[in-house]
């Protein structure tokens, strides 16, 4: 139960799809001019992620992983079909999006009309494929966790597009410099929101045994590349033993 809660909050705030890994930026930038369409698109993304991530987890578990075909018979245990992941994932996503389109058109024609071209474009939204690929690379352990991951990533994306749409509606009456108007200022505001969301990084590490968020890996790799092995060990020990600020850890 605890790992479900942890995955839920981690996917919404710490590994937020827009601010931490920049997935789904194209539709994020294009649809965020009005809050109403942003809400509609966000809801569609949550729904599609909630459906495709568990489906792709099943595909990965029983077809694509190294040794996944063992349930067919012992002679198939050596097969590794993971190179087919991209094609199979995108095929399930395209199919599910087509289904979602039909359902939305039947039950809510108003939403269908306001979303226009963006509903079929969800199929090529990096957030959807990214959700499945991250599910695969982080080796999510069970179907329940996969569903949890899909829903919470979708909620994170939804929060992001809702926030930027609300802000863009407000700054229409602000004095933005002409070259920054529209796209430029949206980029900078998204960057500032991203910095704000970084503050959630300490949310789940209070216990002391948690792994650091993914963004630290590049920083640590940089430290290791420039140092002799002895110096790296020394600094790692120092970082472990006392609380160092993020800036100090990178610049040591």
């Amino acid at each position, binding site marked *: 139960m605890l790992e479900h809660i942890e995955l839920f909050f981690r996917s919404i705030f710490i590994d937020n799809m827009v601010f931490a890994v920049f997935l789904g930026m194209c539709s994020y930038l294009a649809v965020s001019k009005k809050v109403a369409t942003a809400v509609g698109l966000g809801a569609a993304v949550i729904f599609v992620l909630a459906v495709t991530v568990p489906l792709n987890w099943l595909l990965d578990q029983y077809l694509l992983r190294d040794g996944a075909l063992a349930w067919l018979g012992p002679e198939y245990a050596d097969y590794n079909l993971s190179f087919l992941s991209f094609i199979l994932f995108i095929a399930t996503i395209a199919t599910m999006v087509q289904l979602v389109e039909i359902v939305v058109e039947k039950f809510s024609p108003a939403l269908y009309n306001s979303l226009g071209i963006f509903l079929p474009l969800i199929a*090529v939204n990096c957030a959807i494929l990214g959700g499945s690929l991250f599910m695969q690379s982080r080796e999510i352990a069970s179907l329940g966790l996969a569903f949890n991951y899909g829903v919470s990533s979708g909620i994170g994306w939804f929060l992001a597009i809702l926030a930027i749409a609300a802000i863009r509606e407000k700054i229409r009456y602000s004095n933005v410099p002409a070259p920054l108007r529209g796209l430029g200022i949206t980029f900078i505001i998204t960057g500032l929101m991203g910095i704000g969301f970084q503050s959630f990084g300490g949310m789940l590490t209070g216990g002391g045994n948690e792994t650091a968020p993914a963004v630290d890996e590049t920083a640590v790799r940089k430290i290791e590349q420039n140092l002799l092995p002895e110096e790296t060990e020394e600094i790692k020990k120092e970082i472990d033993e006392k609380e160092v600020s993020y800036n100090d850890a990178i610049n040591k």
Partner: protein
Amino acid sequence: MALLTKKDASLILDPLADNNPITIQVLGICSALAITAELKASIVMAISVLFVLGIGNVVISLLRNIIPSKIRIIVQLIVVATLVIIVDQVLKAYAYELSKTLSVFVGLIITNCIIMGRFEAFALGNGPWKSFLDGIGNALGYGIILIIVGFFRELLGSGTLFGFPVLGNPISKTGLYATGYENNGFMIIPPAALIVVGIIIWIQRSRNTALIEDN
């Protein structure tokens, strides 16, 4: 070797500045931001997109009269997915460390809007040679932004270029670090890429006022 005609040359040169896929057409933003913390990763990503877009454009252009309109998105997705699988396997075989840094973003080239965007906007309506040039041009435009962002982020964020320390050694305080200069940790975190691209857009639109959006 025949020189390219003026129109053909403009297919390559336009996307480099005035019709840049990232800053003007607003396509392909996702991977442009996430992997630019290192210059090497940016260049490898740019080359991958060059390969996929160039060959993909030619294939779709050759097939354009045979693809039924109803399933054209699926055909495009299959072509791109196949090319990306090739790129991914080559990277895993010859540059394993780098493929770990790029992780899922190589796979996300499939959903990179530039590729589908150029298929729809150009390859489906033009011949193979022109489509190839258009693909190369847009991939180069994408690559230029990636390289600029990667250059500044790596230089200011860790004082290295391609992994080689160019400003001195931060531990033993040689070179620029002797004056008290410190690496800017902000440049390594993801939001820095958004702000650098915002600044690039600012500069580009100040120089070419025709690109400014009306409110």
